């Protein structure tokens, strides 16, 4: 049960003490205050409530594979939460907890609860995810400052030695991205098991290449005694879990990202990470509110994000643009951009299990609950996905869900961070999916490049040959490439249609 601060015993006792010197007017004010705080708590469902988190309909507690109506209800509730401007009455604020993904206590409460650097830095998820519509990307002004939040968690500077400044990614097609990552993780881990079994059977070390959906992730070596050497694994964590979210590619699931972000940006702490089970305290952040975000509420947020339609391709009536885009797409392929920005990856199944199979403790796991399945094929946009001869879905993400070195000595702009993140080195990032790129400027992980041309010029490291080829193109050829990229849009009408 949530007990608002103004109804807590300490508050009441403080006011009781003060009453001995109170005037009748002051006393009346106190009574009014008391009645208001009681009504603010009890009138959560009034039209004028200052709560932002809506009550949860009982129907949302259904588990298993959801039917269309229930899925729709869950999605709608998720949108309400995503757009909710959380208030202190909802538990917004974390006076005694840092932004860290592992519950971490502050030594003392900050002087100001909101801060554009260490957070709280937003009122709603949609405060940043709104370009071109809710669920979209963010302007430079919506950048976040990512730090571990363990030591020096209350940094008040944008100096990059304390945090990595990141632009807001869009979430359209995020459910499909996570499904792709799950299938790729499954493939890689299956390869690992097969290598171990071969090594055991043969009595010899086995070198196993790692590949999934046409993307190579290096190799591993398996030994007869069951050990694995992962020194040559590339572009994915050595546990062979493809983590598709964030610029860095370090978040496993929408669920994990949601739980992290709720705490970081809003001070809303999900029970599944910050609850008494793990912290001995139902109000870990000491803001006076217990159990701020339930499992089903997180599920609603996940369902809404997972159900966002994938970005689309602009079908322009403009003939010159059509021609330029066609030529540009060919050039895009010819100069090697498509080696990483793969036009599509094949997806086998549209059933989105929540929780998913890959999260660890601290994010709800399928080994803890009877979860839900969101059949994304029930959604209107699913019918627009192209399929191959095997019935697999072509997901046109223009990415490979793999991490790469993206800067070098000469081309270093994208290697501008000073802090590694979650074991991933500072100059290594996941290939940005280009779908929706035309609708989500600015570019680069810091969002400090205003045009597509600028960010292409900034590709170094493993992308250097393609970038050099791009620079050697004629002016017209480069224009064609941009014409093609400018067709990769988030259509506001389609985006809001679901």
């Amino acid at each position, binding site marked *: *049960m949530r*007990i608002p601060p103004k*109804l*807590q*015993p300490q508050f*009441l*006792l403080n*006011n*009781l003490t003060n*009453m*001995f*010197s109170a005037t009748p007017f002051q*006393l009346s004010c106190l*009574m009014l205050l008391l009645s208001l705080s009681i009504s603010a708590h009890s009138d959560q469902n009034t039209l004028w409530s200052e709560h932002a988190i809506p009550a949860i309909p009982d129907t949302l507690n259904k588990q298993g594979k959801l039917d269309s109506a229930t899925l729709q209800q869950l999605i709608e509730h998720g949108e309400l939460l995503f757009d909710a401007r959380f208030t202190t009455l909802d538990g917004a604020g974390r006076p005694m907890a840092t932004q*860290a993904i*592992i*519950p*971490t206590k502050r030594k003392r409460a900050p002087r100001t609860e909101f801060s554009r650097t260490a957070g709280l830095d937003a009122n709603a998820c949609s405060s940043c995810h709104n370009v071109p519509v809710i669920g979209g990307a963010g302007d430079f002004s919506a950048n976040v400052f990512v730090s*571990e939040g*363990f*030591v020096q968690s209350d940094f008040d500077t944008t100096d990059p030695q304390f945090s990595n400044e990141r632009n807001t990614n869009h979430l359209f097609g995020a459910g499909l991205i996570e499904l792709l990552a799950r299938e790729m993780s499954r493939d890689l881990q299956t390869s*690992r*098991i097969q290598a*171990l*079994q071969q*090594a*055991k059977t043969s009595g010899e070390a086995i070198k196993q290449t790692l590949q999934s959906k046409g993307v190579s992730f290096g190799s591993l070596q398996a030994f007869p*005694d*069951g*050990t*694995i*050497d*992962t*020194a040559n694994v590339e572009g994915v*964590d*050595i*546990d062979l*879990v493809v983590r598709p979210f964030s610029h860095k590619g370090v978040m496993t699931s929408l669920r994990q990202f949601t739980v992290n972000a709720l705490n970081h940006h809003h001070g809303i702490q999900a029970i599944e*990470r910050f609850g*008494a*089970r*793990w*912290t*001995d*305290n*139902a109000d870990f952040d000491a803001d006076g509110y217990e159990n701020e975000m339930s499992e089903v509420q997180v599920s609603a947020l996940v369902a809404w994000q997972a159900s966002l339609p994938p970005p689309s391709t602009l079908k322009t009536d403009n003939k010159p643009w059509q021609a330029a885009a066609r030529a540009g797409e060919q050039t895009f392929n010819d100069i090697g951009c498509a080696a990483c920005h793969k036009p599509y990856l094949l997806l086998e199944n549209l059933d989105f299990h929540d929780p998913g199979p890959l999260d*660890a*403790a*601290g994010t709800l*796991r399928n*080994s*803890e*609950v*009877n979860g839900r399945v969101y059949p994304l094929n029930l959604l209107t946009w699913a019918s627009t996905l192209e399929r191959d001869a095997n019935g697999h879905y072509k997901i046109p993400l223009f990415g490979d869900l793999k991490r790469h070195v993206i800067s070098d000595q000469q081309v270093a702009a994208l290697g501008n961070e000073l802090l590694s993140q*979650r*074991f991933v080195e500072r100059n290594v990032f996941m290939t940005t999916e280009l779908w929706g790129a035309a609708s989500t400027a600015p570019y680069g992980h810091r969002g400090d490049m205003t045009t597509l041309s600028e960010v292409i010029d900034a590709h170094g490291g493993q992308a250097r040959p393609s970038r050099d080829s791009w620079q050697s193109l004629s002016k017209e050829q480069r224009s064609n490439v941009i014409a093609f990229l400018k067709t990769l849009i988030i259509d506001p009408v389609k985006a809001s249609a679901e």
Partner: protein
Amino acid sequence: MRPFCYSHQRRYGLLIGLLLSCTTMLSTHIHAQDSDIDYAGDIPHYVEQALEAGIEHQYSGAWEFFVGGGVSSFDCNADRFPDLFIAGGEATAGLYINRSKPGQSLQFEQDKTSSLALKDVLGSYPIDIDNDGHLDLVVLRLGANQLFKGGKNCTFTPANSLWNFDGGNAWTTAFSANFEKDLDFPSLAIGNYVDRTAPGSPWGTCDANELHRPAARSTSQAEDNAESQSKNSMGIPQYDNHQALTPGYCALSMLFTDWNKSGTDSLRVTNDRHYYRGGQEQLWRFDSGEYPRLFSRAEGWEPLVIWGMGIAETDLNGDGYPEYALTSMGDTKLQVLDLQQAIEENRPVYEDMAWARQATAHRPYTGDDLKPSTGWHSQFADVNNDARTDLFIAKGNVENMQDFANFDPDNLLLGTQANTFSEQGEKAGLAKDTRGRGANVVDLNADGLLDIVVVNREDNVSLFRHAGMQHDDGPRAGGNWLKIELQQSGANRHAVGATVSIKTGNLVQTRRVQVGGGHASGSAGFVHVGLGVAERATLRVQWPDEQWSAPYKLFANHHVIVKRDQDTALQWFPVEKLD
């Protein structure tokens, strides 16, 4: 303050009454909630399945076997699943080969032809004595102790003669070993109980303890050290001479421990006051090149007189210095080092924090028997993988001791965020009517969950499989975990004396690789660490020669093997058991 007139008093009185009522109601509500949430963390669900797993084994015998009853866990057939060697007392000891599959029910098969099938065994400790990569076994007995040289496929060869080890003829109840500086082979400390041949026995006739040091490395060997290490051509260990550690006070557990982080171990001995006269707990100091001597009162060692039966070590407060749990009859002791005296004056001064941390475990936590309980094996471990250290204690009446609890279930004290402990043995399924002695808290089926094996006097072994964390809908997954195996070449291949440091967020947990402690029960193999909600951890190893490794970046819920000469850790999967 202004005068408080009567009219105000009346009006305010009503309001005060109203507010007080509200306050009381709210307070009551909150306190009721608090009491409802006795322990909010995960409680393991243990399922006893010794017989189903193929272990039918009792520890039994006359007075000499009222104590002892140990179980060793170690891998003797290179599948990285711990096998068990269980003392039998007057009955035959048994070697049980682990046939379990990952995460499934436990299965063991007794090796009935094993050379380890001896009588009069009280306990055992595994250690690679001759640096050949196979774990050897030190078997503690009533009579001659026996060293066994381990070989392939759980073969063991008696090695007292080979290694010139004098097994003696005492009543041996405790053991510890370490690798001292400049020695290629381990030093073996033997703890003996009552000298039954002495006049007046058993009262006041505690036997001397023993220190068996290997022959020092020869000059030529030292010069060829590098070559020796690469070829493992250090020869064979020789324990020609041994020294008495007197006085002995009827040791029931001993442990080489670096209590002051000096880089040199001291030997901590816990003793049974039931038989000694003028005795106390002991801490032997091993100054370089000198004969071991006891820390004295003048040096800060405070006399402590208990029925000491088991030692467990961990770093509870994250200061890098070890704390100790000492089992006894009645209160368990939880000793925390006075850091200032340790650092500034090298004084081993300890404060007992058992009461403050709710770890006394002084009487049964369930049942009607309010008499003091009797603690034996103690072991720190994280049984619910919440990144907080828990404490297991095997309990059991000595033998019809009427002043002590007869029904005396084993304890499972779960660590809390407030650095206290919460007794959850009954809810966890450990409250059996048995008389526990030695034990091991170890993952027997490679699922990252710590199972528990307890040797019971005059009763079958308890084999508690950890089936997950308790939940209304059945056992569920718990926190994240890591298991770490250390390897180095040359001497001391299993890195005895190494410190493993695991960092997650601001939390640093340490584990030390040791041989000794508990009650007559040793273990070797993976070091287990609970990570809570952390899905990554950074590991550093301080190897036995005090050199620190570079950091290893590890992902949770994996077995990893850290080889000293390799920059990346290997992962291990239980391929042996794959279908």
